[in-house]
């Protein structure tokens, strides 16, 4: 099995799906000739031609809005938003149009499409090349929201998203675009949306996380075993909406201790929802407060990126805090 990074896995997913489904088109800024500023669509123009892969004018509402029309017509558009930080001009088309199309038309019209977009910090991108706005989309009924943490999941989740009948916001953690590498099958396979994966089993604490933070969590959890004698269960959610509450609950009922780790700002971030839901469903199992290790409630800073992100030091401190409580 070839080793791929996330960029290559995304590219491979797009290629295998486009081969057997000619209703798929890729559109966005710099996706064709240039192959995307992160090269995720590299080679697709050459392979599938300009009627399947094309550049757009610089307008996110135009990209998503026309993709909605194409989807209504029966195609499967895969618009790319160059950085999720620039998705807001399309916010109305996403939350008021794509997300509500099926509901408001009584199921007569749907818009199956996958909005692919790089997210998160780690590349010294400052305010506008680092954001993690998943919470806006999780709060919006009618969307699915996905964020992989490794190449294998990236390909399987992207194929599943393309085949899904709903609009999917597919967030690609750019920090690990190339850093995360692993075996990825050449051919097609899917990872069911809505299912988390348990990537470590440990008796003391349940760590709920997703995206690039998974790698920091793994590192922190490993250090915590030796240095703090804390054994963690790590749950990589993979799909953020609708998310896999059952996997979380099963683990929390055994550990009774939870920390939630994400890059997005704390206040009204996704961690708040998970914590509130666990409070509703598992209060009596909790041996300590549920702690959130997240980005801070500031714009994403340039120089202090490492301090801003939920790094291993902060994760380990949270692990100690829930244990010592």
């Amino acid at each position, binding site marked *: 099995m070839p080793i791929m990074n996330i960029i290559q896995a995304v590219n491979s997913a797009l290629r295998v799906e486009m081969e057997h489904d000619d209703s798929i*088109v890729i559109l966005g800024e710099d996706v064709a000739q240039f192959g995307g500023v992160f090269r995720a669509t590299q080679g697709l123009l050459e392979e599938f031609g300009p*009627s399947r892969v*094309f550049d*757009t*004018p610089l*307008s996110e*509402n*135009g990209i*998503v*809005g*026309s*993709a*909605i*029309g*194409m*989807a*209504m*017509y*029966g*195609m499967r*558009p895969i618009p790319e938003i160059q950085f999720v930080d620039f998705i807001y*001009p399309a916010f*109305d*088309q996403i939350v*008021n*149009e794509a997300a*509500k*199309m*099926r*509901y*408001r*038309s*009584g*199921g*007569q*019209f*749907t818009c199956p499409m996958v909005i692919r977009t790089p997210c998160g910090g780690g590349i010294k991108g400052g305010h506008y090349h680092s954001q993690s706005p998943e919470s806006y989309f999780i709060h919006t*009924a*009618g969307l*699915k929201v996905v964020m992989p943490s490794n190449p294998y999941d990236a390909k399987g989740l992207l194929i599943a998203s393309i085949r*899904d*009948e*709903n609009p999917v916001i597919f967030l690609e953690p750019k920090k690990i675009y190339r850093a995360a590498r692993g075996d990825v099958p050449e051919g097609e396979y899917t990872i069911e949306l*809505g299912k988390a994966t348990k990537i470590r089993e440990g008796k003391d604490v349940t760590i709920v996380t997703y995206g690039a933070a998974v790698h920091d969590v793994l590192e922190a959890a490993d250090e915590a075993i030796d240095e703090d004698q804390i054994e963690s269960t790590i749950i990589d959610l993979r799909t953020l909406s*609708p998310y896999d*509450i*059952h996997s979380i609950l099963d683990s929390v009922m055994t550990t009774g201790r939870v920390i939630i780790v994400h890059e997005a700002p704390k206040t009204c971030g996704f961690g708040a929802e998970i914590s509130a839901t666990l409070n509703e469903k598992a209060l009596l199992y909790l041996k300590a407060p549920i702690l959130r290790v997240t980005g801070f409630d500031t714009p994403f800073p340039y120089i202090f990126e490492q301090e801003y992100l939920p790094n291993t030091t902060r994760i380990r401190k949270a692990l100690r805090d829930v244990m010592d409580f």
Partner: protein
Amino acid sequence: MPEEPVCILLPDGKVRKGNKVPDIGSEDLLRIYRVMLLNRRLDERMIKLQRQGRIGFYVGSVGEEASIIGATFALEETDWIFPCYREVGSLLLRGFPLFELCCQLFGNSQDSLQGRQMPNHYASSKLRFGSISSTVGSQIPHATGVGLASKLRGMEDVALTFFGDGATSTGDFHAAVNFAGVYKAQTIFMCRNNQWAISVPSKAQTASESMAVKAKAYGIDGVQVDGNDVFAVYEVTKMAAEKARQGNGPTLIEAITYRLGGHTTSDDPRLYRDDVEVERWEKKDPLLRFRSYLLDTGHLNGEADTTLEKEIKEELKSALDKAEKIDPPTIDTMFEDVLDDTSWHLEEQRKELGRVLKAGNSQQKT
């Protein structure tokens, strides 16, 4: 772009010198007239109904029927329409049953939208009539998408989108027309310039000479047409549709018309505009204009017209009476169609509400 807006029928229903009427058979002429009349009577009736509190809200199109129905008639039945919220005439021309229409207004269990949307926010995939959103301009890029998809797939389908003068100020208009220009999408942009965006006159909407001239910003054709002349609207739209179908690109049409009624039943236009202006436009009424033409040319006579009025009155009454009796949708429908499959959290919420409703009435006093 011609200096003068295209016009074939003068306000008095006479054919303008040097122009000929499009060749449309008598049957079709009467069909168009019937739908224009039905549209008018429907609006009048529903505005009354809203006053009586029998429906919650209504948007009329009095005075704009020619621009809506003329443009729709110029399309193939398989072409797509992306409406704003004032184009019930398109639905009627395409044969949307009055009964279903009334069910939407009441939001009952026979409404294909399951009572989820406000009155007038129709949708019909069968008739290729898009799902109406209240958000001004938001449908315009969808028409670009369909016009582009049709082209990419080598199809002949054309997409026409209706929008108002106010909508030309939105970012969605700008993106949609620009994309269509770049891709030569099979799309027609039909701006109903009815002179007002609620209380804002179109002169305050933009400083451009016209709405049609905005086409230059996108390298596409722009044309002005007398929006109260059903023949002129038909001709201009027909040309635009053929051009689009042949892959020769999109057209921006500005139909110059006037909103004779309030913006919606929530509006009181006397607060911001002058009756004199309204009276001036009443003289250009598209329905009366077309009727005079039909009477002059013998396609219609007074007697036939009276029968038609009677028929329409009865159709309306029976559709209304039937629709008003129908039960609301079941509460569970509120949780359906959010996604294609229901997920655990919606299932929980559905059950939670079910328990509450069993426990007692959920009516909330305010």
